[in-house]
């Protein structure tokens, strides 16, 4: 039925209606920082480990041995990609558990060495909350501020280091705005100042976007997750430098050298291994392409009236040169559209087959203002008008073009119908 016909005299209404019709049947997934689609290779691996080689790796018989091989293979792929030893990889249920283990497990095991932990104001809740827990247990936690683009203010960070500072936890790529910390440089300077500092890096959003070699860079603990890199949900891992003392946070049958009890998630681990293996095929070209798409997107969107691009270094606008852009993550674009509620914009885009998120999807259940957007000093009235577009290596130029086109068409219509003050 031509529902638009009724409204042909009301231009704006018709435009909205027309836009709402998802005639294309397209699915343009730009919420890859929330989760990603698994690759066919990962899917096949999962099915194989779930349905054919379903043994328990702790079993003595050959089904158990077979299952154990999946784990060894995955650990080896991951270790090779990080240039670390397989025994330094602990599999967890995901990024959250990896962060919990890294922070709580290390803090408790090394309590005698120090009682002070430094982190940033823009961490994910899976870092922030374990630290709140440690604070309740008597640890002292300090928060380093970031500038308007979400980058740590180095001097302020270094000033926080004290005699009894045990650990520093820094997120590599921010999940909400794609701000990147210069981890290599920070690590070097931190350790120059205090040699025995333990450095934890939450690399959930960075893993697969950067070549990370924790040993060379002085990272002692590195968390990452499967489902942000086209692997399955429910699996993640923590790299723990073999010299670091760490306690378990999950107790039981002593799996994974007692550091993470519980029958291993063999399909998840195998899937993660497969995802990592695929990650580095044609790696540089994939990253380069995402940057080009990001550049195109930001150049176009920043031209629109009353839009603010978040998480970019000062001087990046208006030309968004590659050199400047590369100080941010290749896949995340955060945009505030003044006067449009993000939820409404999100659903309007959804009706056009474009899937994005408002603020950070993980925290969209809470009506509280975003921690990161607050930390970078975003104006209050823009908080609820901010969308995150996040790409993966599967994102195409056509998809970005189409998204830009839809944003341009929707924006004036959505700005017309607002709650009047």
């Amino acid at each position, binding site marked *: *039925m031509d*529902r638009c016909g*009724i*409204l042909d005299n*009301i231009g*704006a*209404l018709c435009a*909205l*209606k027309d836009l*709402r019709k998802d005639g294309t049947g397209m699915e343009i997934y730009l919420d890859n920082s929330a989760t990603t689609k698994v690759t066919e290779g990962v899917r096949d691996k999962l099915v194989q480990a779930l349905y054919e080689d379903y043994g328990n790796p702790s079993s003595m018989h050959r089904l158990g041995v077979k299952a154990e091989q999946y784990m060894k293979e995955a650990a080896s792929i991951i270790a090779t990609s990080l240039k670390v030893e397989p025994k330094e990889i602990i599999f967890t249920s995901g990024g959250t558990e990896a962060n919990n283990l890294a922070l709580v497990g290390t803090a408790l095991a090394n309590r005698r060495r120090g009682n002070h932990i430094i982190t940033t104001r823009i961490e994910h809740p899976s870092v922030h909350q374990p630290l709140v827990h440690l604070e309740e247990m008597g640890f002292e936690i300090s928060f380093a501020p970031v500038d308007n683009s979400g980058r740590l203010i180095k001097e302020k960070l270094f000033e926080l280091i004290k005699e009894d500072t045990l650990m520093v936890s820094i997120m590599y790529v921010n999940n909400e705005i794609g701000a990147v910390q210069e981890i290599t440089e920070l690590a070097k300077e931190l350790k120059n100042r205090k040699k025995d500092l333990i450095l934890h890096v939450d690399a959930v959003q960075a893993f697969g976007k950067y070549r990370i070699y924790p040993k060379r860079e002085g990272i002692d603990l590195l968390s990452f997750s499967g489902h942000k890199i086209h692997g399955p949900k429910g699996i993640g891992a923590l790299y723990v430098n073999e010299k670091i003392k760490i306690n378990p946070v999950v107790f039981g049958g002593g799996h994974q050298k007692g550091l993470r009890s519980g029958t291993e998630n063999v399909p998840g681990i195998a899937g993660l291994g497969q995802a990592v293996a695929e990650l580095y095929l044609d790696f540089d070209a994939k990253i380069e392409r995402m940057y080009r798409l990001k550049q195109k997107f930001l150049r176009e969107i920043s031209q629109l009236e009353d839009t603010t691009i978040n998480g970019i270094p000062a001087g990046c606008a208006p030309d968004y040169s590659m050199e400047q852009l590369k100080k941010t993550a290749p896949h995340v674009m955060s945009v505030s559209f003044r006067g449009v509620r993000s*939820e*409404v*914009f*999100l*659903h*309007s885009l*959804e*009706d056009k087959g474009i899937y994005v998120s408002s603020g950070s999807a993980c925290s969209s259940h809470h*009506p509280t203002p975003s921690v990161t957007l607050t930390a970078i000093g975003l104006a209050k009235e823009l908080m609820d008008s901010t969308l995150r577009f996040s790409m993966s290596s599967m994102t195409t130029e056509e998809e970005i073009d189409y998204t830009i086109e839809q944003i341009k068409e929707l924006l004036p219509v959505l700005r017309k*119908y*607002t*709650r*009047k*003050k």
Partner: protein
Amino acid sequence: MFKAFLIKYAEIGLKGNNRYIFENALRDRVQEALNGLGEYMVSKEQGRIFVECPDGYDYEETVAALKKVFGISSLCPVAVIESSEWESLTQGVGDYVEMMYPDRNFTFKVEAKRADKNYPYTSPEICIEMGAYLLHRFPELQVDVHEPSVRVTVEVRTKCYVYSIIIPGLGGMPVGCNGKAMLLLSGGIDSPVAGYMLSKRGVSLAATYFHAPPYTSDRAKQKVVDLATIVSKYTGPMKLFVVNFTDIQLYIYDQCPHEELTIIMRRYMMKIAEKLAEQENCLGLITGESLGQVASQTMQGLAATNEVCNMPVYRPLIAFDKKDIVEIAKEINTFETSIQPFEDCCTIFVAKHPVTKPSIKVIKRSEEKLEEKINEMIETALNTVEIVNVK
């Protein structure tokens, strides 16, 4: 130990010649409430409903299900004694008392009913003899025929039934004995309670929800489906009509004074709900309105929304304070769902100072600006309504 339940009803017992309609409705509602739990036999007899439970049934689950059926004033879990032969009857009743009341320091009375009129004892004789037997077996017991703390009732049929526990039911009348009405269901706290209350008077429900994508999300719609599902545990299955209201809302936004938006919107909601109600053979509309609660629920506001309907509009919460509504919402378990923070279509464009004393004359004049398209838009809304079967 209990093999059956005896269900008593108060109000429907008072009805005259059409009493059987009420009784049949209650029997059917009880049967439906138990259908998912196993093979229960539900029958109607002598002013009561009798439920026989299957072997291995779950007592708690059964009681919980029966406590959600409107029309039940109380229910008694019943122990069954297979033989009515006097020796085994006294033995059985004694065992019942022994099991049920480990501490036997209380007063009691035996009441007896006898369906089998050839039984060697009359009802008063059963009371006396059974009382004597119990006193003999449990010397700590005391008889009090006026205000006993425990009434042990013994019914003699082909088998014998004994019961002494009374669990209060919800009261009200069985759903389906009082016609059908259309509930205007938003995602809020009030409307599910309003539906529940009318349904408690025997009314079966259909519901209408006004959806305004992209301004209201699919989660807001899911929330309404969830609310309808919770309410349907009491009211029985219902049809939920999801009306796409965006076009009408934006049209009003374009054409009418902003502070009148909510009132005009609500008038069209009532109109659409009434049309759906007619289609569904409903005899009235139900809203969760409560006098003075929000700007559109003043007497003037209600007069303005009421004016568009020919059907009676039932507003069971009209004189309730919010906290009393919340109390019922918590009791019927809709509260937690209602307070999920999703925007509904009444609030998305709400004016900062909406009219609180709308004049019908003024509103009607504003609505003249809608004449060109509005009927067609209502037609479209009705033709594109989505029906969700909730149970």
